[in-house]
């Protein structure tokens, strides 16, 4: 650090009372554009097969180059089948195969690293980035996928972007972005047994609504977050977008640094020490200003289950479904629509709702700790008759670790189908789909109409523990009654 004193002084001054959002934004700001937006450098660009082919077509059409190919990484996750046989190339689904070939060809042509299944590096893009150590505190990250907010768990500004913007990043390594307001959400105290990171995510969305975050970055903090592992923190940030926030993040701390140490793309040796010092410096100052502050008591969070067609339509598992007239008048239409679609009635308990399918996986809950949690509830038990249950690791690396621990056998013996890595039934662009109006207990992030591959399929979002116990009981069950397992 060879800085002139005057510069250090200036830096100290500008940093007083700054939050991480502003520090990281300023670091990456190239300048203001005539529209009033800012041009922001993107430190890590992740791409996958669904939202990138048209972007490469735009690059070619405009005869542009990719000036920073080493800052983009790619994988295949949305369309890839999760059974060994179906993963054989060419894929049976010709459209899926075409997309696969495009990402292979595009990344090769432009010199972009491809985390391929053949190399054993493939997985859901938001699982792969962190596990490789690509996601580092203080970065700006973009990906043509809304759940890019996941990476915010490391103290990054991570944005989901559209395909035209993917082309912008490929061609310039920058995005045009407006500055956001920052809402601090403090989770105080501690979580009760049987309450998990997924419940924390569903709790803030329930409290603030699916569009409560519009115009905001969410900064998550408080003792509940401080005591979480990185995998849990990723689950909380993953769903920031479901609350309408443009991004969500947490301040990096020792838990973050311990997670990153010795990962493939992380600095080593002396550079590691310098990196940690830098990462500490970008955390929000204790006297930071926020545009809004919300407090949620950890003790008050119950295991949550969604009952409707938006991630905010949820209840604590011990509660009954809300009355239509308990909602503000303009929201009653979507509540009625939800009841009609789900074939549920107001006032009925959520507990006991029969489930047909259980899906454990996705960028929300497809990491090793999620699989461990789910496995602990099915070990030595059997999936209820008539229930189809899938355990889908978030990446090939997660799969290897799970197999090393014997989790695949636990799932297999319980009657779960142990699958290979991918997005799978989260959005059902591969063969893993609901049929008819099946009800799924799902650890994924969206319960939108038709989300899991059937236009009448029904999704109940919940934690991996709740999904696992639902698989065993064949119905929505309060996991807190089964914690002695």
């Amino acid at each position, binding site marked *: 650090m060879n800085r002139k004193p005057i510069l250090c002084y200036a830096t100290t001054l500008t940093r007083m009372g700054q939050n991480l959002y502003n520090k990281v934004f300023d670091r990456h700001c190239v300048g203001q554009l*005539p*529209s009033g937006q800012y041009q922001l450098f993107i430190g890590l660009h992740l791409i996958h097969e669904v939202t990138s082919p048209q972007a490469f077509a735009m690059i070619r059409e405009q005869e*542009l180059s990719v000036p*920073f190919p080493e800052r983009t990484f790619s994988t295949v996750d949305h369309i890839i089948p999760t059974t060994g046989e179906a993963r054989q190339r060419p894929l049976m689904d010709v459209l899926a195969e075409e997309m696969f070939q*495009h990402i292979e060809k595009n990344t090769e042509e432009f010199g972009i690293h491809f985390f391929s299944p053949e190399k054993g590096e493939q997985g859901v893009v938001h699982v792969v980035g962190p596990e490789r150590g690509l996601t580092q505190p203080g970065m700006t990250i973009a990906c043509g996928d809304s759940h890019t907010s996941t990476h915010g768990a490391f103290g990054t500004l991570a944005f989901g972007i559209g395909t035209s913007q993917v082309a912008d990043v490929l061609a*310039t390594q920058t995005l045009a972005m407006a500055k956001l307001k920052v809402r601090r959400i403090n989770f105080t105290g501690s979580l009760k047994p049987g309450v998990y990171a997924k419940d924390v995510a569903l709790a803030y969305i329930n409290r603030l609504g699916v569009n409560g975050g519009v115009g905001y970055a969410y900064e998550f903090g408080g003792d509940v977050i401080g005591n979480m592992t990185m995998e849990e923190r990723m689950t909380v940030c993953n769903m920031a977008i479901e609350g309408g926030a443009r991004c969500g993040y947490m301040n990096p701390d020792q838990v973050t640094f311990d997670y990153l140490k010795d990962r493939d793309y992380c600095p080593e040796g002396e550079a590691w020490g310098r990196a940690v010092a830098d990462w500490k410096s970008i955390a929000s100052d204790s006297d930071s200003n926020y545009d809004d502050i919300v407090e949620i008591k950890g003790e008050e969070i119950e295991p949550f289950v969604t009952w409707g067609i938006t991630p905010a339509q949820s209840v604590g598992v011990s509660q009954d479904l809300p009355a239509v007239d308990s909602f503000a008048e303009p929201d009653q239409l979507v509540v009625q629509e939800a009841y009609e679609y789900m074939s549920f009635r107001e006032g009925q308990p959520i507990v006991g709702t029969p489930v047909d399918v259980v899906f454990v996986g996705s960028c929300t809950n497809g990491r090793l700790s999620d699989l461990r949690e789910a496995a602990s509830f099915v070990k030595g038990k059997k999936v209820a008759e008539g229930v189809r249950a899938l355990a889908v690791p978030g990446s090939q690396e997660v799969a290897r670790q799970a197999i090393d621990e014997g989790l695949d056998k636990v799932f297999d013996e319980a009657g779960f189908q142990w699958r290979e890595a991918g997005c799978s039934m989260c959005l059902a662009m591969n063969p893993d789909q609901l049929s008819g109006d099946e009800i799924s207990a799902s650890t994924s992030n969206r319960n939108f*109409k038709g989300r899991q591959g059937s236009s009448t399929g029904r999704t109940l979002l919940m934690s991996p523990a709740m999904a696992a116990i639902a698989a065993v009981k064949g119905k929505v069950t309060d996991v807190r009654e089964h914690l002695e397992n």
Partner: protein
Amino acid sequence: MAGEIISQVTGPGIPLRGNDIDTDRIIPARFLKCVTFEGIGEHAFEDDIKGLATKGQIHPFADERFANGAILVANKNFGCGSSREHAPQSLKRWGIQAIIAESYSEIFYGNCVSLAVPCFTTNHDTCAKLQDVIEAEPTTELALSVADATITCGDETIQLEIQSGAQCQFLDGSWDARAGLLENLDKVRGIASRLPYIANYA
């Protein structure tokens, strides 16, 4: 390389009532299996259309009366969910040239700007009123002014809102941000070289 200047949009309207209409409803995920956006407009709201048809009801996007709809009037949190540009692409390719709603998901909004589809906001009552007018007289020609952020419907002109940055981009043809971003590549390289994680935290 400035794009087309978009100062106004005229045409019939199409009403779409309800809050929180998400990207997966606009274009179901199975239609995303494509490497171009061609033909994606034909599948806009396909599952919602089928769902209503089984109940003997008709979705606005399947209703002949609104087949020429160019100005979509929705409600709150329109386009929430995915960042996939497939959603606004399918609306645009279906024929939508501008949207009025109470609010939007931000990613969807940004995607619309880069596709030259101006998005206006207004309150619930105004959205409802416009939806009523369009339903009563589907052939009514609406005229949106980007510069004034107004909609004219018959002899009435209603004030709407539009984000000033986006407004400016439509009026000077810079809604496709790429050209502006490319102009600063030298400065971008300078910023990059100073970022700690690129300079090995030196």
